[in-house]
């Protein structure tokens, strides 16, 4: 319990950067759920694909890393869009459980394709040296990534917010998530909007994946499973369908995880259980999440 102020600040920066990553990935879940009412189980694996694409981009192409850091997420966005076309679109009219099973299948397919194509052995993420620098500020030594991550996250969030609030496509997206059927009667191109949603979600997941790779430089085909589940939980905590909620949930989860270890080191082994316990508490006491709206049961 006797934590010095330096240590505390160090944990805080760590928690904030982890929280930003969770927030970025959680947005993809919440956007898709808002429109399709579907847990995109494969989202965590899209995150994994984004990280691997970046890895191969840096290793095998002469393109500088800062361009790869934009190109790879764009490519991942396309993959997410294709995933929706193949695995979810044919099931648009089916019961929700059927689509959920398809999503679980897609998740396992991507993981095993990952093992097949990338190999099961962990790979080291080629972190650009500039991001590896460690800053020392008043006794607190912080890797520069821990500053870069929240800054990039904030920039992406501002961009996303502008897109959703100010553009026509964003307006269509909001309309679809408010009332799918009415919106579709108003002449909104549903398929187009859903494709864009998947593109944005996957793009942000890949961005999160790249920064994840810089922070925890070990790539594995299964690396998306646990962050994926946790970020879905973050989305539920914030109120699924609500983007601000997803960001809030991501930060609660990231900070909570780090601070629990900081204050109660004996519970380190239970670190991964924290998210699940939080999920169950939220579901039992406020199933709509912190910022979600209550939906009345319709007969």
């Amino acid at each position, binding site marked *: 319990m006797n934590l010095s102020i330096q240590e505390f600040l160090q944990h805080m920066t760590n928690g904030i950067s982890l929280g930003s990553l969770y927030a970025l990935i959680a947005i993809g879940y919440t956007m898709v759920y808002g429109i399709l*009412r*579907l*847990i995109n189980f494969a989202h965590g694996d899209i995150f994994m694909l984004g990280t691997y694409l970046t890895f191969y981009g840096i290793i095998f192409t002469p393109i500088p890393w800062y361009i790869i850091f934009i190109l790879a997420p764009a490519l991942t966005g396309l993959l997410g869009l294709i995933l929706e076309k193949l*695995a979810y679109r*044919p*099931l648009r*009219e*089916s*019961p*929700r*459980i*059927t689509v*959920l*099973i*398809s999503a*679980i*299948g*897609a998740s*396992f*397919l991507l*993981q*095993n*394709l*990952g*093992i*097949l194509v990338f190999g*099961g052995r962990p790979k080291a993420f080629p972190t650009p040296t500039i991001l590896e620098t460690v800053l020392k500020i008043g006794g607190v030594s912080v890797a520069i990534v821990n500053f870069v991550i929240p800054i990039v996250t904030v920039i992406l969030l501002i961009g996303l917010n502008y897109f959703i609030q100010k553009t026509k496509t964003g307006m269509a997206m909001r309309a679809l998530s408010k009332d799918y059927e009415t919106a579709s009667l108003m002449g909104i191109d549903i398929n187009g909007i859903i494709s864009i949603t998947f593109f944005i979600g996957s793009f942000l997941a890949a961005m999160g994946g790249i920064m994840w790779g810089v922070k925890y430089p070990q790539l594995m*085909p299964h690396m998306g*499973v646990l962050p994926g*589940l946790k970020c*879905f*939980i973050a989305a*539920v905590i914030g109120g699924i369908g609500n983007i601000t909620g997803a960001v809030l949930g991501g930060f609660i989860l990231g900070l909570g995880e780090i601070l629990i270890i900081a204050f109660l080191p004996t519970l380190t*082994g*239970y670190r*991964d*259980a924290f*998210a*699940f*316990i939080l*999920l*169950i508490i939220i*579901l*039992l006491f406020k*199933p709509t999440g912190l910022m979600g709206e209550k939906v009345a*049961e319709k*007969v």
Partner: protein
Amino acid sequence: MKKNGLWLKIGILVVALIGLFVINLYLDSYKVKVINLCAIYVILGLSMNLINGFTGLFSLGHAGFMAIGAYTVAILTMPLEAKTMNYYMKPMVPFLLNLNLPFIFALLIGGLMAALFGFLIGAPVLKLTDDYLAIATLGFSEIIRIVFINLQSITNGSLGLKAIPQMTNEFIAGKLGLASRTNLLWAWGIAILTIIFMQFLMKGSYGKAFKAIREDEIAARSMGINLFKHKVMSFTIGSFLAGIGGGLLAVHLGTIDPALFKFALTFNILLIVVLGGMGNIYGTVISAIVITVAMEALRFLDGSMNFGFFTTPALPGLRMVVFSLALMVVVIFKRDGFIKETLEKVRGRYAKNQ
């Protein structure tokens, strides 16, 4: 007519038992192991089908309940020497160290423990619907696994348990002068009992209530069906069977560790249930057997292949790619699984597909 059906069933049962007995004595031990695993997956598939297929509760917590059953059986049946050998990092709690029960009691206790946890977890969680329930049960299954990793003095943590006593047919095989191998009659006996139990359950009023809940919760509630009671009941029975399946799996494998009970295990069972058809007993049995055998038979996919003029490198992961693809193809193109119950007959012309 009905009586004939019953006699036919009893006939099949007797033939199956004699067949098993002969297989058990003469087939090589690898094949016997695969057949044994089939029975375990039949039990697990049925238990998941009861919850997901018949009652329409989408639960993804199977691996957790299996872990409870498996660890209970392992801890209760392992002799003192095996325990002291296993727990070298951190000694086992003395109360459990000297506890040693016959297999059948251990298995029952394993099932009951799983059922108890199923009840405790189900009671609060079953208020949730569809995907929330899926993610909450998945969460509980992960929590169980993480607790098992951390409770070193009880479960031996991530080191797992080795040398779990096997169930062999030593007695009979010894008398006939044959090599002893895994005793099939345990797993298959329990699998057959499970099939019979499921049939009686689904024919009775409880089964009808389960199906009503699956078809339309609100309609079921207005018909006077106690939703909560029936959901918890289905979930608890399903957890009990999952615990039994887990216990048999522990004995079958001889080695368990928490990493075994990850979500991938639940996925395998989900594969069986979906391919066999949600809410279909015989479909589940057939698909459990087919998939278990296929999982073994297709192991060559992971290794290197020799086409005579050309050898492919080893491709680990290819086997599971095939199975994930199979699941998705079935879900997308044949929604009700390969072997479907004729739902159209049950539903009216105007019934919706939700």
